[in-house]
């Protein structure tokens, strides 16, 4: 460090800064204000997908212990509740879901479709919920005759305004050094459409699911996999 650098470091102590204001209360008020949230929704360039996951506690003990709560992560809402409503009837697929070739599917969505190396090429590729210009929100890769599926969608969603409530069967894991959620048991999944409305008719029973986010894209891997197998698949995205 030469003289000038030393002088500058010394000057730091002489530069006057008023006492810092306490902004915590205002920040919290703004983060919880519902008006701001609606406005943000309107301004979001890409309106994104949320999937609501209502957890089925695995047993009676869990039912007694279950704490009602809601958890949002990367565009996915996880609600844990003691008395989950079971979906009835035959679930509809995602809105306007249709098969597409991989290259075509890639043209239909705004994010890159990436294939997990451990699973190889998918048996089928589906796209769903197009906007008026034909751009789809969700791309799904189907494996093992539909028993294993990987949903991908733009997950840069409005962050949550709810407290974390890790319920039974939900745990935080890591994928590629970042946080991910593992839902280790059967649960109901419903789709939240472009307007933010929950599509009850899409509700269905889902197998174990891993949810993670990479480069702004949210992935949802569902199927008969152990937690570690799912994480391995997630880490193998090309």
């Amino acid at each position, binding site marked *: 460090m030469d003289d000038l*650098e030393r002088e500058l*470091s010394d000057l730091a102590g002489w530069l006057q800064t008023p006492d*810092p204001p306490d*902004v*915590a209360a205002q920040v919290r008020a703004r983060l919880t204000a519902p008006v701001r949230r609606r406005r943000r929704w309107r301004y979001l360039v890409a309106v994104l997908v949320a999937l609501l996951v209502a957890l089925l506690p695995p047993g009676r003990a869990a039912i007694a212990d279950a704490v009602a709560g809601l958890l949002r992560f*990367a565009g996915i809402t996880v609600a844990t509740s003691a008395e989950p409503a079971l979906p009835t009837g035959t679930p509809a697929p995602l809105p306007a879901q249709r098969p597409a070739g991989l290259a075509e599917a890639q043209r239909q969505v705004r994010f890159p479709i990436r294939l997990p190396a451990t699973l190889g090429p998918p048996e089928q590729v589906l796209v769903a919920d197009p906007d008026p210009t034909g751009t789809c929100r969700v791309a799904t890769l189907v494996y093992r005759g539909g028993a294993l599926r990987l949903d991908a969608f733009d997950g840069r969603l409005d962050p949550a305004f709810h407290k974390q409530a890790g319920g039974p069967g939900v745990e935080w894991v890591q994928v590629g050094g970042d946080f991910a959620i593992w839902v280790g048991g059967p649960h109901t999944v419903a789709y939240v459409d472009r307007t933010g409305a929950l599509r009850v008719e899409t509700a269905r029973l889902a197998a174990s699911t891993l949810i993670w986010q990479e480069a702004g894209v949210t992935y949802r891997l569902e199927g008969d996999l152990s937690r570690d197998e799912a994480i391995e698949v997630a880490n193998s995205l090309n």
Partner: protein
Amino acid sequence: MSSSPPEVALDDEELVARARAGDLEAYELLVARHTASAYRTAVLLGAGPDAEDVIQEAFVKGYRNLSRYRGESSFRSWLLAIVGNETRNLHRSRSRRDGLVLRAAAADPASEVTGDTAVETVLAGERREALVRALRRLPVRDREVIVCRFFLDLSEEETVTMLGWPRGTVKSRTARALAKLRSLLDREEVRRG
């Protein structure tokens, strides 16, 4: 994850993870922890009386963009980058302000000085004023890097995050800013001398 006892001071990474899951109280702890350095940053980058608005906006945006924080840098430098952006946005929309205000010499803790020491104190004060004048004449980007490295005491790595420049640019810009500062000071001395 939520099982840690509350009396343990949580590090930033842990608080970020909780805040990301929607825990506003965890985020409030981060706000409290980083208010002072965020505010000083905004003031030194020239936000003036708008510094409070700037940091409030930065904290709100920080929360909403938490999913983009990858943990590659410290949360502090990631947050200060948002503060820097907000201050620049302010400059674009209003007339430029200068945040470099020297504290009155009376605030010097060693103020009981006489004789030679008093002369030295006066000279040191004049030198500081000259330095601030020179800093004010530096181009914005040069001044930003000086503020980061010397006034906010950010490491080179943190400055990379804070200014969003490549490491090489941070290095070369720092060297160039120091050289410009030196020549501005020399010229001033010649003029006064």
